[in-house]
């Protein structure tokens, strides 16, 4: 029979962390994503980061939009409240949640369609507002859940499984986040656990808008025509029927490369990705040179990974608004209601 079982995300080692929680305490429901989907690796890195940070799992709130990527919050941190909002609008919902209770940790998970297409405005404005959050885009350059259309991060020239060629300029979310004043900007690759986990930890620890663009290959709908010219039964089968009927389980793509190195990743469709890990000498506190660095390597066809920029003294939206330290959702009636006497004075001023 055909049911493909998914491994639960937990690690064999169940050593407790400083709070006494094991990795299992940071897991969620069994993933229903395709086997080999990069998004599952990101979930694993989130679990790992939360575990290593000794976070009380219920003190984090996880929010997302709509998409395969946006489903993932159900698959990690099962003891955290989660909110799968509407497509492209997670940033505003997260902003509201963060206003209501400044004491929780807010993790926003989104896709490239969710954040760069329909959600570009909300992405941009939440970043420039300095909402204290970790905002992860699981970037596969495609709409996974709706079966393979281009997203706004798809490269011009790429071709969908239906044969349509993309001509629009790709949006570089990292460049955008830098421009918009995000105070923590990083990029990584789903299969690079060694790089990704510490970045997520750093982002969570950062106060202000922390953005991580994680390249996360979609095993089904990657948009490049494969270089494999050999006869592939499955591909031909689907092509003949003009539908995406049979879907093949794939292995997760992992990488392991050192700072300063370039790693060539071959994706499931045979296309090539050149990842360049920032060198150990790179100074991530200079925003303008970060932008320059990014542009430079982009022009060379390289995708820079690592922590591109951080402002260690960043302020967040609550600082800007000067809100009280006590969470707004915990203020009592006495703190909220000016009372009858004040109202009488107000009435008097209106006569």
């Amino acid at each position, binding site marked *: 029979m055909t049911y493909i079982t998914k491994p639960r995300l937990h690690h064999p080692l169940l050593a407790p962390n400083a709070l006494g929680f094991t990795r299992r305490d940071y897991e969620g429901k069994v993933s229903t994503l395709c086997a080999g989907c990069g998004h599952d690796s990101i979930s694993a890195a989130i679990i790992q980061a939360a575990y290593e940070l000794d976070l009380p799992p219920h003190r984090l709130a996880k929010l997302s939009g709509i998409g395969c990527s946006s489903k993932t919050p159900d698959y990690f941190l099962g003891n955290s409240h989660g909110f799968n909002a509407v497509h492209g609008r997670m940033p505003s919902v997260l902003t509201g949640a963060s*206003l209501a209770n400044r004491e929780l940790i807010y993790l926003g998970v989104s896709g490239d369609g969710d954040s760069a297409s329909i959600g570009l405005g909300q992405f941009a404005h939440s970043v420039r507002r300095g909402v204290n959050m970790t905002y992860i885009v699981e970037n596969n350059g495609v709409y996974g859940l709706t079966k393979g259309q281009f997203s706004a991060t798809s490269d011009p020239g790429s071709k969908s499984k239906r044969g349509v060629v993309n001509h629009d300029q790709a949006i570089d979310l990292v460049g955008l986040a830098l421009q918009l004043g995000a105070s923590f900007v990083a990029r990584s690759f789903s299969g690079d656990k060694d790089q990704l986990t510490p970045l997520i930890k750093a982002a969570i620890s950062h106060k202000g808008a922390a953005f991580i663009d994680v390249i996360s290959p979609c095993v089904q709908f990657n948009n490049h025509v494969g270089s494999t010219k050999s006869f592939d039964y499955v591909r031909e089968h689907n092509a003949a029927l003009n539908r995406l009927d049979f879907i093949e389980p794939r292995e997760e793509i992992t990488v392991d490369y050192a700072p300063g190195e370039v790693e060539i990743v071959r994706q499931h469709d045979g296309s090539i990705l050149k990842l360049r890990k920032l060198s150990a000498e790179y100074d991530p506190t200079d925003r303008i040179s970060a932008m320059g660095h990014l542009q430079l390597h982009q022009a060379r066809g390289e995708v820079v990974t690592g922590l591109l920029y951080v402002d260690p003294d960043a302020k967040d939206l609550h600082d800007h608004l000067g809100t*009280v*330290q006590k969470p707004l959702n915990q203020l009592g009636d006495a703190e*909220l*209601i000016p009372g009858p006497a004040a109202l009488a004075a107000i009435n008097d001023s209106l006569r």
Partner: protein
Amino acid sequence: MTPISAVNDFVVKFANVNGSGSASANGMFAKSILRMGVPVAARNIFPSNIQGLPTWYEVRVSEAGWLGRRGGVDLMVAMNPQTWDQDVASIEPGGYLFYDSTKPLPATRFRSDIQVLGLPLTAICNAAYSDARQRQLFKNIIYVGALAHLIGIEQEVLETLIREEFASKPKLVQPNFDALRMGREAAAEMLKPIGLKMRRSQAVGDRIYIEGNSAAALGAMYGGATVCAWYPITPSTSLAEAFTAHCQEHRIDPETGEARHAIVQAEDEIASIGIVVGAGWNGARAFTCTSGPGISLMQEFVGLSYFAEIPAVIFDVQRGGPSTGMPTRTQQSDILLAAYASHGDTKHPLLLPEDPAECFEFGALAFDLADRLQTTVFVMLDLDIGMNEWLCRPLTWDEGRRLDRGKVMTYEELEAGKDFGRYLDVDGDGVAYRTLPGVHPSRGAYFTRGTSRDPYARYSEEGPVYVANMQRLLRKFETAKSLIPAPVSRPAKRRTPHGVIYYGSTTPAMHESLHTLEQQGVHLDALRVRGFPFSDAVMDFIEAHETVFVVEQNRDAQLRTLIMVEGEVDPAKLVPVLGYDGSPITGRFITDEISRRMRGLTRSPVPQVAE
């Protein structure tokens, strides 16, 4: 034509150009009448523009306390040459035209059946001031002085007002006194007495004079709202701005100076409602305020709030639609869209305040309702209530009143092992318990989504699970009926088979019309509806009458539609009376419409009129 003669009962209309400083002078005129103890209803009619276009200010003086628009003008203060002809034409026969006579106008520009009061305002200003801006600003005060003399507003009253208004800028007090006196003296010198007169009265009582938007914002503050996310749009902008001001005054931690509230001007309406939904989910009382275009943009999120059951409050200060429509005119035309907002099967509670006092009450109540019902509650204001100052009863807040946060399961309850099913109807009222994020280390967490799920919040696409949940939502809506403010009944003096239903800003005009109709021998039981879903009392009222007029300010009889649909009422019973030209509906209009229909009705096969 004999000049109109009236005491404490007339309409003065000012025709100005916006940005010319007339608004504050005209406002002072209205307020001075109030201070003489005589009720006033004043309305701004302004363009969607910043400077240089026509604007009017209509002041109805009514000792009898009629606060609706009356229609017609007894004294026109015509300060705008652009609109001269229409302004002159709008004066009632026997009425008065006050104007700046510095430049002589040919007789053809006047009417023979009105009284003309020319004062060379520009000349007076030019003589008194050299600075162009002062000439402009004080001209307004000068005409107020002249009018005060003509109709008999006490000088002390005006001077007190000036002292109050410029309390923070005392340097401005004396120059305004001077201007006022200049106008008074010029009028005394150059003009004959007129038939419109003010007389001190006690008719105002302890009432206050406030804009609905400001009152609603006070309501939100008293209702415990801590998060406000908004996007500027006329006529709702001043609600958010008032909330900001009120909170700055009353919601600051006295020790630290920190804010016990968070107000975000969002990038648009979708973000505004998104922020509200996020905050509501996380247990803060949150609202946004907007107008029609914003309601259109918020549809998707309102559906999420309905289905994922998240408290939210939206103040819709309605303006003339559709589309950008008449952005600075009033209407009640978002009723239907708000009630059934979003795709799929949805229904949302509405509150329908009649005046600023109810804007305050419902503004506070909306947050209790949203928390108790875990859904979006709309408070439907309109431009007329929202942006005009209305005379209304003082705002009150009971000493012991507590915010009702609805069913929130606590740490203690979870810890004690109480069963938590986020969408489980434990009490049979359709309302389930929720938990707030972060409440408990291992219990009570759930995943909120806009997709179908079972009572324990687990994703489900199964038909029966879906249907059971949708039925529960109907039960919840049933529960809402008992929480929505009951309608206010106003029985006729005589038994009658005729009723009338009305709501919101139509109220003062309706009351005046009821009075007029009664004098004409037409008796109607009246019911003011204060919210949706309708309670049984509304349906009983309809049941008890043969014909029920439904008076509202939109083209398509939107509240009538809601009554028909939700109450299963035969439309033949419900006669629409619709005024929707963007000006607040008048008592005269309602009276005419109802009289006309009554004539039709008495000729109809159902002629049992009670007399």
